[in-house]
C-alpha cells in the first residue's frame, strides 16, 4: 500500500467521525453539562474550603475554577474516550468496526487512526468548554489554547488506548457503569485534577503516591502547564511514554473474537451464534 492509501484512509476515518459528531451534536452538547456543573457549581462550593497557594505553572494566586479547569478538560476526554472505546467493542459502533477491520491496511494503523478520530471530536468539546470557562474568569493566555493541543491529543490517544485495552480484555467491565466505577472515577479522583498533590500528601502520603503513579495525573499536568505556556518535561514525558505503551498493547492485543464485532458474545469460552 502506498502513502496515499494511508492518507485517504486517515481522512476517511476522521471525516466519518465528524459526520457522526454532527449527527449527534445534541448528545455532545449535553456531554458538556457535566464538566460545566463541576466548574460552576462544585467549584463555587469548594472555593471557600480549599485555598490554593501559588504553585507552578501559575505565578499568582488563582481561583479554584482556574485550578480545576485543566482537570475538567482531562475529564471530558476521559469520559469520551472510555465511552468511545466501549462502543467500538460492544455496541453502537460495531457495524463501523466490521467495515473498518475489512480494510487491507494494517490493523494497528486503523485502530490508532480511529482512536485519534474519536479524540479529535473530544478535543473539539474541550475547546468549547474552555470558551465557556471564560465566563467564570478562567482566562489562560491566548497562545495557551494552541500550546495545549499536543497535550490534548496525547491524552485522548492515551485514554482511548486504555479504553480499548480494557474493553477488549476485561469482560467484567463491558458496561459503562462498570468502567465508570472502576476506571473513570478512580482515575479522576486519584489525580491532580481537583486538588494539588501537595494537599494530598498532607492528607495521606500513600494516596499521594497512588496519584503520582496515575498517568491521568501527568496528563492533567501536561494540559495545565501547556495551557499556561509552561513546559513540564516530566508530565509530557510520562504521558507520551504511557501513550506509546498503551497504544502498542491495545493494538497488538486487539482480538476481534473477544469483542462483539462478529455479532457474538465477547468470550472465547462461550459458544457464539453461528
Amino acid at each position: 500500500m502506498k502513502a496515499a492509501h494511508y492518507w485517504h484512509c486517515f481522512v476517511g476515518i476522521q471525516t466519518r467521525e465528524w459526520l457522526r459528531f454532527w449527527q449527534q451534536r445534541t448528545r455532545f452538547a449535553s456531554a458538556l453539562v457535566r464538566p460545566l456543573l463541576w466548574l460552576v457549581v462544585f467549584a463555587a462550593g469548594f472555593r471557600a474550603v480549599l485555598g490554593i497557594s501559588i504553585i507552578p505553572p501559575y505565578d499568582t494566586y488563582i481561583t479554584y475554577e482556574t485550578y480545576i479547569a485543566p482537570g475538567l478538560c482531562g475529564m471530558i476526554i476521559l469520559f469520551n474516550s472510555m465511552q468511545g472505546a466501549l462502543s467500538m467493542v460492544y455496541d453502537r459502533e460495531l457495524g463501523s468496526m466490521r467495515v473498518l477491520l475489512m480494510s487491507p491496511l494494517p490493523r494497528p494503523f486503523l485502530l490508532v487512526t480511529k482512536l485519534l478520530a474519536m479524540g479529535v471530536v473530544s478535543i473539539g468539546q474541550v475547546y468549547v468548554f474552555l470558551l465557556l470557562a471564560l465566563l467564570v474568569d478562567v482566562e489562560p493566555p491566548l497562545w495557551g489554547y494552541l500550546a495545549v493541543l499536543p497535550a490534548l491529543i496525547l491524552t485522548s490517544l492515551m485514554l482511548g488506548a486504555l479504553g480499548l485495552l480494557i474493553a477488549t480484555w476485561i469482560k467484567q467491565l463491558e458496561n459503562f457503569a462498570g468502567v465508570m466505577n472502576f476506571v473513570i472515577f478512580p482515575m479522576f479522583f486519584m489525580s491532580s485534577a481537583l486538588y494539588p498533590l501537595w494537599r494530598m500528601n498532607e492528607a495521606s502520603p500513600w494516596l499521594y503516591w497512588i496519584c503520582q503513579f496515575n498517568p491521568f495525573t501527568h496528563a492533567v499536568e501536561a494540559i495545565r502547564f501547556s495551557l499556561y505556556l509552561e513546559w513540564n518535561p516530566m508530565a509530557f514525558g510520562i504521558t507520551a511514554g504511557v501513550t506509546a505503551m498503551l497504544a502498542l498493547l491495545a493494538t497488538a492485543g486487539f482480538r476481534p473474537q473477544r469483542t462483539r464485532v462478529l455479532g457474538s458474545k465477547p468470550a472465547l469460552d462461550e459458544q457464539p451464534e453461528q
Partner: protein
Amino acid sequence: MTIEASNLSFRYGDRPVLREVSFALTSGRFHALLGPNGAGKSTLFGLLTRLLALQQGELRLAGQSLKHQPAEAMRQIGVVFQQNALDLDLTVRQNLQYHAALHGLSRKEARARGDRELERFNLLERANDAVRQLNGGHRRRVEIARALLHEPSLLLLDEPTVGLDVASRKALNEHVRTLSEEDGLTVLWATHLIEEVRADDRVLILHQGQLLADGNGQAICDAEGTRDLAETFHALTGAG
C-alpha cells in the same frame, strides 16, 4: 479468483465449531454454503474475513496465504455481514465513501465508483438519503454495492437475506447471481434457507462444524439418492 480452505478446525474453548473443513471454490461461480443455525457458517466467515484468527488449517486466496498476505487478501474480498454494518444516520453516499477510504481510494474515485455501483443497483436517486430511510431490501443492496466498491473478485455474503420478506429475498438472491454471471465474481452465499439454493449451484453443506457434502447440487442429490436438495439437506442434517 479462488479460495482454498484446507483442514480448517476452530474451537471456542473446549467446544469444536469447525472440524477439518476443506474445500476450494471455483472461480467466477455462485456457491451456496448451506447449513442449519449453529452449523459453523459464521465462524467460517469469521476466519475468511480475518475477524477470527486461524487456529488450525490453512486458507489460501489465489494461492496466497491469508495469514501471511492479509492485505492482498482483503483487497480481493468483499463482505456482506449477517448483521447490518451500515451507519444508519449517515447517507448512502457517506457510507460508501467511508468504505472506499478504508480501501485507500480518493474521494473523487470513491464518488465515481460509488455512483456507478448505485446506478447498477438502481439506488442512485437515494444516494443522499440517510440509510435509516431505506427499507431492508434496499439497505442490503447498499451493503452489496459497498462490498463491491473496491472491485473484489470474491464476494462473501453471510445470510444476507435475514430479516427480509420473501419477495426481497428472492430479488436479492437473483441479483447476486446476475453479478456473478456478468462480472465473473466468485460468490459464497451462506444460508439456512433451501429455497435460496438451486440444483445446479455448487453447494457446500455444513453441519455441526463438518462439511458433509461439496459439489453440484444435483450430483449431491444423485449420490444421496434423494429427489431434491430439500430432501438431501434433511437427510444429512435432520433440518429443513
